[in-house]
């Protein structure tokens, strides 16, 4: 009996430690995610990405910190001038690789798509063959993992929206993707409070644009 009590006490202690650890993790992630609402400059993105990356480095078994760090870098790549897009895009991809080493997820491919697209925009005429195809490949691979990821549909809509109708894109095709995205966003039940949920409002506003 005494033995049993010792064992239970030990087990309880372990659980408590794990709980404290996860409380710390969720707390830090939550604080950082809250920060995502007030990003203005490229530097803001990069600074917040660094915070996520530090959590990733410390945790070692969580893929979401690296995911958010990558996401912020890919957003920064879009906003940054041409001369900085490559460094940010490559950083985003490096972080995606780190996250994938822990756990693969369709979410990571949306980030990869954005990083490659941002890099393509530096010089679309010559870079399309490398980065355009890389971006398309990311979308394809993402869909293969989870065809119901609303963010991937939103990304595909963006891609179609920006490709003229004569060339296989256009509003009509984009609209179908945005509709699908919005429907999936509405059904979406985040796996945890820190799971990715971004893009819903943007997809809805893009859908509105297509309807005009």
């Amino acid at each position, binding site marked *: 009996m005494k033995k049993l009590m010792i064992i239970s006490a030990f087990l309880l202690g372990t659980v408590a430690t794990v709980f404290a650890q996860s409380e710390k993790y969720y707390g830090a992630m939550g604080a950082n995610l809250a920060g995502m609402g007030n990003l203005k400059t490229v530097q803001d993105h990069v600074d917040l990405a*660094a915070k996520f990356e530090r959590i990733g*480095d410390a945790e070692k078994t969580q893929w979401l910190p690296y995911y958010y760090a990558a996401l912020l870098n890919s957003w920064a790549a879009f906003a940054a001038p041409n001369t900085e897009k490559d460094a940010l895009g490559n950083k985003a991809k*490096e972080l995606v690789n780190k996250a994938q080493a822990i756990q693969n997820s369709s979410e990571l491919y949306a980030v990869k798509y954005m990083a490659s697209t941002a890099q393509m925009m530096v010089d679309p*005429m010559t870079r399309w063959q490398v980065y355009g195809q890389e971006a398309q490949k990311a979308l394809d691979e993402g869909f293969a993992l989870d065809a119901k990821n609303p963010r991937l549909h939103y990304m595909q809509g963006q891609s179609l929206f920006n490709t*003229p109708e004569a060339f296989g894109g256009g509003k009509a095709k984009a609209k179908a993707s945005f509709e699908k995205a919005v429907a999936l966003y509405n059904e979406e039940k985040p796996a945890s409070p*820190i799971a990715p949920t*971004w893009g819903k409002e943007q997809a809805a506003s893009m859908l509105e644009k297509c309807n005009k």
Partner: protein
Amino acid sequence: MFVLSKRNSMKNLFLLIAVSLGTAAAAQTKISGKVVDQRNRPLQGASVAIKNAYDGAVSDSTGKFRFKTTEKDTQYVVATMMGYKDAEALVICKGADQTVTLQLKEKLDELKAVTVTAGSFEAGDKKRAATVLSSLDVYTTGGANADITAAIKTLPGAQQVGEQEGLFVRGGAGFETKQFIDGTVVNNPFNASVPNIASRGRFQPNLFKGTVFSTGGYSALYGQALSSAVILESIDIPEKSEISASITSVFLGAGLQKITKKKNASYGFNVGYTNLTPTFSLVKQTPDFFTIPVLQNGDANFRIKTKRGIVKFYTQYATNSIGLRRPNIDSAGLKDAFGISNYNWYNNLSWRENFGSGWKLNLGISYSTNKDIIASNIQNGSNQNVTGTGKPWLDNRNFDLTNQSDLSQIKLVFDKRLSGISVLRFGAENWYGYNTTTINGTKFTLKDNLTAAFAESDIYVTNNLAAKIGVRGEYSTAIAQGNIAPRLSMAYKVGKQSTMSVIYGQFFQSPEVNNLMRSAANLGYMKADHYMMNFIHQTTLQTLRVEAFHKQYHSLITTSPINGSFANGGDGYAKGIEFFWRDKKTISGLDYWVTYSYLNTERTFNNYPSRLAPTFAAEHTASLVVKKFISKINTGFNFTYSFATGRPYYNFVNTGSQFAIADQGVTKNFHNLGFSANYLTKIGKAFAVVVASVTNVTNANPVFGYNYSHDGSNKVAVTLPAPRFYFLGVFLSWGVDRRQDAINNNL
């Protein structure tokens, strides 16, 4: 534009924060300090953190950082930065402020390391993605008509030689440039040609993902080219299956490319038919074409992905024929008639594999056979053959010639990663050439077994200093001689985006087949020493390149005035400086490049009586290439303007004991303005590109040199068969949207 806002629905988050606030009330330690590099210069953007904890900061522009931590006792602070090795320092977190300096050592890094780029224009290099000339560039160079060689002529170092095919680089003759596909040499890269008219290259630009135009000092992996190497790398498995068709004023074509579902293999074929009858009926040609140029060609390919590599096969068969008459230069009533039929079969099989643990392999096997059947005749006013005039300079123009050349090659290259990012490459190759030429029933044969071994190492001393050291040894059975050619280059990064390089190399080339056939026993290698210095400043969208060179020629082939035999009696030099500026940045959507080449060269070769500036060398050459794509109308406009100062010309006469200059001069300056427009649209379900192109828009009448009559009294300018060439075509494809290339710039 892609716009992504970062607002999320954050109800859950606030809950989390509320929970987390309760735990954050513990005591804090302030940590501050500086991140520096090996030379104590501040590093911006380094990430500094408590090891295995969340607290940290990013260093600012002065390398300084500052943060607070709730961690306790002894901790490590870690600084990390891309391209540097991590550094750690100990801190004691007991409330007292801590100050640390973290010094990061640079990691040797392929992306950051300097590369030796002197002497070559790399294009399509994925790693750097800052291409100089891509296959799309070839298609959109005004006036180049999708010919790789024509597009390369807008780069520095190449001469504007318009009366024969080939690249004349830095005072070198056309035969001094060799083309390589996936490592192996291409024996007959151009379609059959007639005297004084340049022919096109055999290969479509879209077969290749990368083109390297080396104007000298190239790698020890390549040999048998005194001046220049054009190194083409074929594409791997394409993205999507497609069916294509082309309907143009000059040719018709159709093709299929099929990719397996798993995208691990593909196969395809193309057929084409070229006929210049419609063009010639609209645009008057100076020569009288009794056989209007006709070309049939077909190609097929397969590509299969292996475990960590790819096997590729490409085969192409083509036949073409041309026949034309021109007035005879010696006799007003006579004409020179020249007809040629050509058959060419080219095959290339390559295997690239990464075996892991730093070992890579490249195997190339190629086989080609080429046959020319030529009939040259003197004809009278009613196009009847005339023989036995008693005048040798006329009778010598009556001949039948059949030429067959076969070349088989195998080349094996191993690539071994050494410590860091340094690489050792080594391998061997064998060329077996079999040539027969029959002139008026007399047959000449030449067999040559050329074996080469080579080794080369890229050595990175630091990210800023690299060297490429190579050596190549060859042995040719035809001349029963060997050669050893050392190559050395060094590059130093002088700024973030600037590189200085120096290059030295020895280059050997066997004499041309028609020389060897008659005098192989007396001949040896021709040789060139290259010395080059180069500066490149390259940013994402701009490239500035300045290169100075000196080339020393030895043992060039000369012709004996006494019996017409050949010897290694020639030599010469070439020196100059070249500028290249490409800019896609200054004016949005406008891509342009400017080149200028200065060349000073003299040589003794062929029947040159002394060292003279060769007829293919202009002192000053310049090009301006401008490309603008207007997204609104889905149309691209491309202009190319080329200029060259006049080239020397000579009338050499044989006095019986020596060659002498009977007349000489310099041609007028050369100008050429080329234009093309490409409109992207959709026809039915097919994606379509409509291309219109005009060469020599200003109708300038270029003079490339002069032909002399036997007695020297009549001199006729060598010029174009028609000043302008027009092209109109529609390229259709079902499947892949090739126009994505062009339209994505409106993203």
